[in-house]
């Protein structure tokens, strides 16, 4: 099993979710994060001083999947999140040796979906 972690633009979350659903990936955990990457920030001004915001709002999606689902999942994320602009984000794939469903105690591949 793999743990897929994607950092995307907040505005693309609905698209990514749609694409994942279309690929039959229906479980995920979403976190509000701020990110710092290639993407330039923007300036704001407050009480006479101008300043740069370079930690930008992003959304982090965590999806645990069986190995055969890795490709469809990654593809769906890319499909939903890509605009071609800097700041589109990253996908990280980690090994996931174990997964347990709290409700039933099921383990492994049965528990993930």
């Amino acid at each position, binding site marked *: 099993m793999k743990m897929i972690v994607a950092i995307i633009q*907040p*505005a693309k*979350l*609905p698209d990514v*979710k*749609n694409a994942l*659903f*279309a690929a039959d990936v*229906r479980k995920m955990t979403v976190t*509000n994060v701020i990110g710092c990457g290639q993407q330039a920030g*923007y*300036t*704001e*001004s*407050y009480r006479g001083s101008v300043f740069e915001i370079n930690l930008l*709002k992003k*959304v982090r999606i965590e999806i645990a999947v069986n190995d055969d689902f890795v490709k469809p999942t990654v593809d769906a994320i890319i499909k939903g999140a890509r605009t071609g602009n800097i700041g589109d984000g990253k996908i990280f794939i980690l090994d996931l040796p174990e997964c347990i469903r709290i409700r039933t105690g099921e383990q492994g591949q049965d528990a993930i979906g």
Partner: protein
Amino acid sequence: MKMHGRKALLLILASFCAVFAEDGTQYNMVDTMWVLIAGFLVFFMNAGFAFVEAGFCRAKNVVNILAKNFMVFALAAIAFWALGYGLMFGKGGAIIGTDSFLFSSTANSPVTNIPVFAFFFFQLAFAAAGCSIISGAVAERIKLISFIIFGIVMVAVIYPLTGHWIWGGGWLSSLGFHDFAGSTAVHSVGGWCALTGILILGPRMGKYRADGSQRAILGHSIPLATLGGFILWFGWFGFNPGSQLAMDENVPRIALTTALASCAGIIGGMAVSWRISKKPDLSMVINGCLAGLVAITAPCAVVTPAASILIGLIAGIIVVYSVMFFDKLKIDDPVGALSVHLVNGIWGTLAVGLFAAPELFGGKAGLFYGGGFKQLGIQLTGIAATGTTVFILSFLLWSIIKSIFGLRVSHEEEIGGLDVGEMGLEGYSGFQIFTTEDIGPSISFESSKTARNKVQEVVR
């Protein structure tokens, strides 16, 4: 008011209770104080509009909406001072006033019991209210500069024009059109401007789906919206009773009809939304309250308390259906300004023709009080004339502004929020806020009907 013998004498004596200005003009200081305090309350309604609108918008646009409302009084003041007051209350014909520009102590005033400064102050607060109505309807997508320009011209020209017809001695008032505190003169006029603005701007991104269905775009702070509702409600006790422009024995009744109509509006909005969505939707209850207030604004002085309850109740019912109706037409009004101010402004103006009680209306009566269709016809004339005029003028004005400055912010800015794009300042520094829409209403999963069907039961 008819006066005979003894009473007249007493009134003459009573009139001594006044302070005399240097030029010998005599003002009633009780009336003056009343009008000033009412003006303060109407002024405070700016805060009410600001927070209703801010609460019903998304966090990413909150600074923008607050700025518009905070600055609107300033813009209105200068515009009304220079041009608007003269067009509205200057001496002139049936169509428009033609003197008293650049307001000063020698300006024309329709009332003599209070100094012209007090009258101007009160009218100024009213003019700003008309402008505030628009800002909510076009929120979350309009360019700041374009709104500012529209607001200035609107307060300087459009509002005074129809205002002159209704309150400045123009043709509608000669006709007998009755709009006590401005269901038409203020609220509908603002509403028509808002409507044309929305028509030209189009809906917010993502509000309507490809399949025609609509998504709810949740307001970011119901507490702020509720605060705004309370402040508007409070301020309305200046708006309506203050419009008597004197402290006489009618004022308490006006305060009471105002209060009762708002209560009935709440009950109407609550009942209908409870029926429709199985829950009493607070955002609709607030709109219902405001709808009741807008509707009673025209008839508040000429109807009985019992009638005011009916007028308010109907307003509260109308507002809910109206919100849903505009959404069906894909007319995207984030705060319900059209349903509250335009639709119920019309309803309230009509209500004069239906419910006016002869003992309060100088012998004339509305339809239900045996006066036939006469007053109703006059009211309809006023609504139609004002509506057509303001619709055309505001449509033209928006179009001109659009062709020069553009009306709508860029897509990127709309997604990222007008606070970053237009204001360079975010509303809630340090708070972790989901900017994605998905937190609120779920998007539709056409590709996945099964998932959708499962979402029924309420868990947690």
